[in-house]
């Protein structure tokens, strides 16, 4: 007969050290892993203007925030504390035409941010943080009113989120820097 000779040893590969190998790799990746989540304040820069004139904006719909070289915050040329920016902004955005000096509607309200060449960066970030905070609070309360859930728990790109974003669009304008 053509019966082949077969070895007596079992044909399986010994798998008992597999766990050790896997552990070694696991420890290597554990050590080199840095789960640093990128967090920050998102912003969209305005495109370089063409020769076309920007559409005129009514004075009342514009809130000028200037952070000068000394790190002072000026709202419409009046000095203001960084901590007060949020309340001022909420009032300004959510005015809906009540006060003639403030915005006509949240959709029209534009926040214009201007800086100096020697403005300290951390003051600028603090101020921007307050601006974002104002919008976050407005969106939060709008979301609670309409849907009964916080804005942050709405799903991304859902109809509800779009609706709130349309109610309070972030219209933040970075002013053109001065020459020289």
């Amino acid at each position, binding site marked *: 007969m053509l019966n082949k000779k077969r070895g007596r040893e079992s044909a399986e590969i010994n798998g008992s050290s597999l766990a050790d190998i896997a552990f070694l790799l696991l420890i290597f990746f*554990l050590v080199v892993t840095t789960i*640093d989540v990128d967090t*920050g*304040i998102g912003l*969209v820069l*305005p495109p370089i203007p063409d020769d076309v004139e920007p559409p005129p904006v009514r004075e009342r719909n514009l809130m000028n925030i200037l952070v000068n070289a000394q790190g002072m915050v000026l709202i419409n040329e009046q000095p203001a504390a960084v901590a007060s920016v949020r309340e001022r902004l909420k009032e300004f955005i959510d005015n809906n035409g009540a006060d003639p000096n403030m915005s006509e509607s949240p959709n029209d309200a534009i926040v214009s941010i201007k800086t100096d060449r020697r403005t300290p*960066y*951390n003051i600028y970030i603090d101020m921007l943080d307050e601006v*974002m905070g104002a919008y976050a609070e407005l969106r939060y309360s709008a979301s609670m009113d309409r849907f009964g859930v916080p804005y942050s728990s709405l799903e991304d790109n859902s109809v509800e989120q779009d609706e709130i974003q349309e109610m309070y669009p972030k219209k933040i304008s970075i002013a053109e820097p001065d020459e020289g």
Partner: protein
Amino acid sequence: MSKFKKKQANTSQSVPTSAMPDVVFMLLIFFMVTTVLREVELQVQIDYADAENIEKIEQKRLVSYIYIGPERLGGNRVGETKVQIDDALVADVNAIRNIMYDKLVEQPRLIVSLRVDEDSEFGIITDVQQELRHAGTLRINYSTRREI
């Protein structure tokens, strides 16, 4: 008396370990997927600013970093504020335009993360932002830590 005798379990005392490699492999794959090996060597010193109202960047593939801070010299000394993109310091600010434009062509939905030292002055950031506007990379993100 036998009523109070402890019941002896009949099962074997050892925990079956045959599934352990599977568990370990699962963990291993998780860490392999989430690992980002540090690809740039920082040549500038950066302490991030703190902020409260921050957002996460979910899609890391879209992000490109610009580092701005005082240059690291030997020892603990730091020099002038410099701009670093990828692995090299950018000598001429006007070169940023072309670098970022090339990146934008590769990744049209590019987000530029500005990692700026908190003690910087805003002038250099204004210059960089102007360059970004010329390049057309308009989505930016000021990298900050969460304020506690």
